[in-house]
């Protein structure tokens, strides 16, 4: 294998890592919610989609009212997007899931599909069905290698990796070290007992939805800045791939979600780079189906024993 191939492989690896980091960030939301109330938050992908719109709107608004330094603009966009999606995440839980706590098994999932349709159609009505675009904020790439053979990573991509790393570390601290994290883990283990011990489990559940939404917003903000193009339909496919990541890593496990995200991202990047671009979604769905059939507990999850 010559150096040229190595650079191509390296490039795909970088693309895959960046893609995987975003999947991982979104997967956190699926994984935490599933871990705590045992439902698939089907509308989570749509939160990611909404965050893309909010980011673009904020950036456009900043441009409209006169310039700010790029760094400040990005920070403001990120914080504002996080705030809006946090409210959205909280609202969705409050309105569509909380009343269904004691309903039949399929009710929350059906309700979640409803929410997902609502969000998609709402954005379509509010912002139009057209494909949206956003200007590039940070020009420039980091190049590794020589003149003809090199691999590169754009500053936006770098930003995604850094953001993913920072947010993962802070989440780890939050869950592992703080009082909230302890109540969160307790609720995951046994919600009834946690309630008896004086933990406000309802608040924990709400906060978990908010955290999930915020992480989706981080992914949404930076991915939108990186790709610069989005529409109201991106939530569905990205959401499913992120869910695949959550399942691959072991649903309920946070390091698992990130690991699964990276693996799915790299696998997808390699598949579309070296095998076939048209079938890359088939490949991702195929992974999902295969894991669920062969090892539904994922890489870092605990296997469930059938209780009789």
């Amino acid at each position, binding site marked *: 294998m010559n150096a040229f191939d190595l650079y191509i492989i390296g490039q795909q690896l970088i693309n895959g890592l960046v893609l995987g980091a975003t999947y991982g960030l979104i997967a956190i939301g699926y994984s935490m919610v599933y871990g705590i109330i045992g439902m698939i938050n089907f509308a989570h992908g749509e939160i990611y989609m909404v965050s893309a719109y909010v980011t673009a709107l904020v950036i456009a608004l900043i441009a409209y009212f006169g310039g700010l330094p790029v760094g400040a603009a990005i920070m403001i966009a990120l914080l504002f997007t996080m705030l809006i999606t946090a409210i959205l995440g909280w609202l969705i839980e409050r309105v569509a899931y909380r009343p269904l706590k004691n309903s039949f098994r399929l009710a929350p999932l059906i309700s979640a599909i409803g929410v997902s349709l609502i969000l998609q159609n709402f954005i379509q009505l509010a912002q139009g069905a057209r494909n949206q675009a956003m200007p590039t904020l940070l020009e420039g790439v980091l190049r590794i290698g020589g003149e003809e053979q090199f691999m590169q990573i754009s500053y936006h991509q770098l930003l995604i990796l850094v953001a993913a790393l920072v947010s993962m570390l802070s989440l780890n601290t939050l869950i592992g070290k703080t009082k909230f994290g302890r109540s969160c883990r307790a609720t995951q283990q046994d919600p009834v007992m946690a309630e008896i011990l004086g933990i406000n489990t309802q608040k924990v559940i709400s906060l978990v939805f908010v955290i999930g939404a915020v992480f989706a917003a981080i992914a949404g903000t930076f991915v939108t800045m990186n790709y610069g193009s989005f529409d109201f339909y991106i939530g569905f496919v990205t959401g499913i791939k992120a869910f695949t990541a959550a399942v691959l890593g072991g649903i309920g496990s946070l390091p698992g979600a990130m690991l699964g995200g990276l693996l799915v991202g790299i696998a997808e990047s390699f598949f579309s780079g070296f095998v076939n671009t048209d079938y890359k979604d088939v490949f991702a769905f195929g992974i999902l189906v295969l894991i669920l059939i062969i090892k539904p507990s994922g890489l870092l999850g605990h*296997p469930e*024993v*059938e209780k*009789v």
Partner: protein
Amino acid sequence: MAQKREEKILSVTNLQVSFGGIRALDGVDFSILEGSISALIGPNGAGKTTVFNCLTGFYRPSGGSINFKNSQGHSLNLAALFGSLPFSWNRDQLSTYFKYLPNKFFGGTHLVTRAGIGRTFQNIRLFKELSVTENLLIAMHRDFRGTLIKGLFFPKIYQQNEKKQLSKAKYWLERVGLLSLANERAGDLPYGLQRKLEIARTMCVNPRLICLDEPAAGLNPAETEELSSLILSLKEIDKVTVLLIEHDMSLVMNICEQIVVLNYGQVIAKGTPEEIKNNPKVISAYLGTENV
């Protein structure tokens, strides 16, 4: 008659089950005589329900064997029903191995039930949204084989056919005193009646061995009394062998002929109620000992 009673309907030899390194059952041996009432007792977590799950095909043992005498009087290895008989080059065993190999794909728990082992569950598992009668009819679904076309397009003929099953359902509803509640939603019944309905439902699959998992749990003394007479009548009237898991010792001591005591996945004692009562090992398992 006396000779027949001595026949074993079920023999469990060296049964082993482990879950990811933890040995839930470690060489359990016992056998049950046909037409008797036996009990499986032991402290919580001793592996009683695991034994039941093996007997009724929900778990596959990792070792040992369970032999059940089926209605033709042949001894049937339960592993055969899952197509998971041990492979060997012995000529006789080889032919049985291949005879039951299709079960690897088409077999399963339901074949155990069809062979004649019925069971109830610790936490009652009724079809809550369906009516009491429908619960019983579902248990008799084997009697409805080949009635799809008739049922869909010739309701009148189907109703004629259904009469036999309905009269059997009526018989069982009367036995457990639920006839007046036949069209109620099963989930709406009070707890004690749900237990009885579950037993009636299991009896509708014509078992020859019925495994009751803590039938008296959650019942008050009067209900327990009724339950023990129901269990005795299963033996006397229906000639069914009964195996039960129970924590209510007075019930166990009153109606059982044989008791098997499990602790830490091993049989620590078996015998008549009298023998068990005075067995020091059993007492220490339940109450603990001073000198370990």
